[in-house]
């Protein structure tokens, strides 16, 4: 999960949704993927349709037009705010209240693309994205949309075996979060680093003992006393 750039939205049910905003680089890469894909489709069709003579060229012009203007809109409206490029980058367009993108919203933000692309290479869009607190380009501002990361996370179903031990100090909610985060992420650290972190909690113990103790405390937090 990304820690930065979170944007909170309250749903009608009173739950706070936390959206993680996508920055210009991710979006530019998604755009690059889409552009490549579009060029590829166009090139293949150009090859096939050129066999049809002038009529083929006419059709090709229409398809080129559709790829330029309606490719993003159609994908975003039908595929939950995701073009193939956005899907590959794990981002999606949503309305600023977190609701799914409507056809009109998508059309506004994509029609105004030209203004964002002004004068070259999306310079204006890039600048507005940096200035805007919610990473919106001009089209996003007009359509009131956001580009957010869509995270697919699975809760880990690790086996929690071993002794459990209640913490020997009054636990604040901040402490609890920190301990649980350690429990979930400990596999990402080397043994030495884990021991080093554990010593922050139990400076009086030797490193291996501190780690063992810390693990038993986090197990207690998750499973309770056994």
């Amino acid at each position, binding site marked *: 999960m990304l820690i930065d750039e979170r944007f909170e939205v309250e749903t009608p049910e009173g*739950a*706070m949704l936390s959206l993680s905003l996508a920055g210009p680089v991710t979006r530019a890469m998604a755009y690059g993927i889409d552009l490549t894909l579009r060029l590829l489709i166009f090139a293949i069709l150009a090859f096939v349709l050129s066999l049809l003579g002038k009529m083929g060229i006419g059709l090709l012009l229409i398809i080129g*037009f559709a790829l330029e*203007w309606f490719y993003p809109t159609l994908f975003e409206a039908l595929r939950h705010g995701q073009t193939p490029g956005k899907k590959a980058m794990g981002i999606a367009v949503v309305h600023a209240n*977190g609701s799914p993108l409507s056809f009109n919203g998508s059309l506004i933000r994509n029609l105004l693309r030209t203004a964002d692309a002004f004068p070259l290479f999306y310079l204006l869009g890039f600048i507005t994205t940096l200035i805007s607190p919610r990473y919106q380009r001009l089209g996003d501002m007009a359509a*009131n949309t956001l580009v957010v990361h869509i995270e697919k996370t699975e809760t880990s179903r690790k086996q929690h075996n071993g002794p459990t031990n209640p913490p020997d100090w009054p636990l604040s909610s901040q402490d609890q979060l920190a301990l649980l985060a350690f429990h979930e992420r400990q596999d990402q650290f080397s043994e030495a680093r884990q021991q080093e972190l554990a010593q922050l909690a139990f400076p009086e113990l030797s490193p291996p003992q501190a780690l063992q103790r810390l693990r038993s405390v986090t197990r207690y937090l998750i499973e309770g006393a056994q």
Partner: protein
Amino acid sequence: MKQARFEQQYRPLWDSLEQQLDQLEALRVSRKKRLPLDRFVADYRQLCHQLALARERTYSLELQQYLNNLVLRAHRQLYRYNPPLADRIGVFFASGFPAAVRRQWKWHLVSALSFVLSIALAWILVQQQPEMIYTVVDEAMLSDLELMYQPADSAGGDIHAGREGEDDVLMFGFYIKNNIGIAFRTFAGGLLLGVGAIFVMLFNGSFFGAIAGHLINTGGHEAFFTFVIAHGAPELTAIVLAGGAGLRLGWSIIAPGQWSRLDALRLAARDALPTMYGVFALLLLAAFIEAFWSPRDFDATLKYSVGAACWALLYLYLFFGGRQRGAGKG
């Protein structure tokens, strides 16, 4: 309740919600695999409650994140807005589009004036001083134009005579790509404080005016006007409307009135969008007429009458379409 028990207790609910969401997010699901969705809303409410609990009890960030994402997915499905399309399109063309145009008549008037005045200015200049045409078009393009619209009695014959069905399709594609692209860019250009939209109006206006003036000088005007009159109605009107919609956007940033600039822009974009749907339809129509009717060799009287009818019908539609009888002004 400890986190492990919490997860154990509600895991079946979350799994079933995930399955329902997978189905809702898929474009199509075969009948056999369809799950009943009548529990979806109730499940979603419970999920919201569990997310709030997980935060209150400071369960692990990973679990909070998982629940948050699940709520997000369900929220997107629950508040999705997909009314039937065909009805809306019918209502839009019967009343929505002309009403949207009339609602913003001031912007369309400004856009039309800048277009018409630049046509008139360039036209008069070129007719008075024929060499002025070279400020607008270069020589190669000019000779193409003269060839295309040479007087019918001259030796070269009619350029359209050898045209076949294939050329019509080619030109249809070209007009769609070119004209609709211009209209969309004009609209977007309006966002740059209106400058982009005004520029397109002035540029295209003086271009059109200069060529019309020049062809009168060279005697090719009948070929030219019989060609443009019919599709000119939807095409020129659509470009003017796109310019007007663009100006509306630009002005909302220059003078937002009682709104913040951001809100003013949002409102303006929402207001201008119906006009752009209409512009798109008008330009499709124009491309169709331009490719399949305009190049046909018919008697000039016939072409002028059909052209006049196009203009009259279009403006009757825009001025009176969708007005409620007895509703009074507005």
